[in-house]
Structures are given as C-alpha cells and as structure tokens.
C-alpha cells in the first residue's frame, strides 16, 4: 500500500512537471516564435508541413487548418498600437491602406476565438466590402456602442463583444512569395483606441 502510494505520488509529480513544461513552453513560444509588426503578430508559415512540433501544436490550438505560405498570411492582434489589450468597452479604429494581394479581410473574434454575435451579422470586412477613401486607404471602427454605430452606420464598422477582450485577424491571400520575407516590415493597418465607456 505504501509502495502504491509512493508510485502514485511519482505519477502525480511527473504529470505536474509535464504540465509545467507545457505551460512554460507555450508562454515562451508566444514570446519568441511570432514575428511582431506593430500591434500584429504572425507565424510565418503556420500550416507548413516542415514546421516544428511546437508550431504544429500551437496552430492546432489556435486555428487548426491554417494554410502554408505563399497561400495566405494570417496576422493576429490582441493589443492596440499602445500595446494595451483590446477590450469591448473601448472603441477603436483601424486605419490602413489597401494591401497588395488577391484579397484580404479583417475579422473580429471574441475571447474564445469565435465570431462575435451581432444582429447585423457583420463579422468581417474584406477588400471587396470595405469602403476606401479617396486616397485609397480605409478606416474601420471597432465598437460595441449602439449609439456610435448609429452615428457611423454609413462607414466601415464591426461590432466587438461588450466588456470582453477580443482579437482581430488580418488575412491576406496570395500576397506574393516575397511578402513572406519582409513580414516584420510590411505596412499593416494600425489599431488605435478612440475612447472607452468608463472614461
């Protein structure tokens, strides 16, 4: 019985150590594996068959069926340009220029990584649905405020979850092989906080 208890303790210790390694590696991976470009982060080729096993595991948890380069580049933003976590009780704008590619889109996800519930069924804007300004750029508002949406209803906007952290994905399809060699320097839209409800 004592022996059994001892082996049970060993087993628990091994599991705890494995969990600790896995948790630490996940944190380190987030810190070092992603290429950062302002408020965006990207894995250069998330679906690639030659990726390492940590990338394979991270992608399986975050997006499961990601394409490899040069098919698509997937940028994600969890923070604004000031490096503060995106949260639904604040209103943001995304300002950028058209992106040279076959097509691109900007999508908002809730904390769990799912599309944000909204009566308007607007989950994303893409290079065909976004309204460009005269200079060829665009501005997209991210907000959960109904009054603000009424004010800007003719403009580009996507609803974000109320009082909850959220993330933004920028998908760029067929941007060209060369694009992937300069992911750190390419021009990407900026996410800026405009105001928060409690301010």
């Amino acid at each position: 019985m004592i022996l059994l208890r001892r082996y049970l303790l060993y087993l628990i210790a091994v599991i705890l150590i494995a969990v600790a390694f896995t948790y630490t590696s996940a944190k380190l991976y987030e810190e070092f594996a992603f290429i950062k470009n302002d408020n965006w982060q990207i894995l250069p080729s998330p679906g690639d068959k030659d990726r390492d096993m940590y990338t394979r595991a991270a992608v399986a948890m975050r997006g499961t069926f990601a394409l490899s380069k040069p098919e698509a580049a997937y940028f994600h933003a969890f923070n604004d340009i000031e490096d503060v976590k995106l949260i639904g009780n604040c209103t943001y704008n995304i300002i950028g220029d058209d992106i040279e590619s076959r097509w691109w889109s900007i999508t908002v996800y809730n904390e769990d990584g799912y599309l944000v519930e909204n009566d308007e069924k607007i989950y994303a804007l893409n290079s065909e649905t976004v309204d460009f300004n005269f200079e060829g750029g665009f501005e997209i508002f991210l907000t959960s405020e109904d009054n603000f949406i009424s004010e800007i209803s003719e403009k580009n906007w996507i609803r974000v979850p109320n009082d909850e952290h959220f993330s933004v994905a920028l998908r760029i399809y067929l941007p060209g092989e060369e694009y992937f060699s300069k992911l750190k320097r390419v021009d990407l839209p900026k996410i800026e906080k405009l105001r928060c409800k409690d301010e």
Partner: protein
Amino acid sequence: MNSFLKKLSLLAIIGFLLHLIIIYYTPTLMMKYVGRNWEEQNMINNSFARDLPTSDFTEVIRPSADILYGGCVYDVTYFPLVIETEVPETYWSISFFSENTDNFSTVNENSHNFGKLKMYLFGPGSTPTKVTDGFIVVSPSNKGLMLMRQFVGNGSNVEKLNEIQNNLNCKLQDS
C-alpha cells in the same frame, strides 16, 4: 548525487518526455476532436458543405467569415480518392491536411483557373503513374481532410458559389 536528487532528476526527465509526447500528439488529438462526429455524419470520403460561418459556428476556432468552406474527410487506406469540382470565378483553393494537421498540398487558381477540376488523392508511399486527366496528390497519412475555400467577396455571387460547393464530388476510385 544523493538519492533524492537522483529521483528528482529522473522525474524531471520523465516529465519532460511526457511534455514532448503531449506537444507531439496535440495536433492529432485536435484533429480527432474536430472530427469526432465525422463518421456518424457519413462524411468520410464524401463531400460536405458548410454555410458561411456565423457566431453560432464553433466547429473550429477563428473561422473566416469571408470564405465558404466545403471539402471531404478522407481515408485512402485502400483506394485513392477522386475529387471533382467546378472552378469558381472568385479566389478558391483546395488544400489538404494530413492527420497531424499539416497542410501538405494546396491547389488554387494559379494552377487551374477555369472549367472543371479533377484531382486524385493517393495514400502514403504511392507512386501513381497512370493518371492523365487530373492533378495527383499524395497524402503523407491515410486519413486527413481536404478543404475547399471560396472567397465570397461582397456576396454578389454567393448563390453560384453555394452551387459549386454543393456539387463538389469526392468518392473512392473503386466505389
């Protein structure tokens, strides 16, 4: 080194190995989790079509709201899979994911941009030579997933894209 330190080192090594096993098998387990209902929904070696994702869609995380997804879950253990579809006028791709979620092959408008498309998907180790009427893809695993993505753009062509998706055909060559 005293016995306590030896035991601790051994536990740490075994713990680390267990961690590597967890990391290694996470994608395969995710694939199994995503596909937990595939068999009962008769999706193996049959095509499936999904509506445009909405907030109710929780099958995979971070779905694209701009893409119509269709595809086939495949098992090419005994026979190759034949995939046939019409090519849409919008952006499209047919991508293959092995059992551990690797995207080992993608065909898109740069490879074929009009009319009909035919593809043959073979199992690992195959060296097919007699196919002349379509693309050949060899999967590194017997089981996996093919996904067809169609960009809906401003939605003006969504009916046609739905039609293409619904007519996507996947069948084992011998069946």
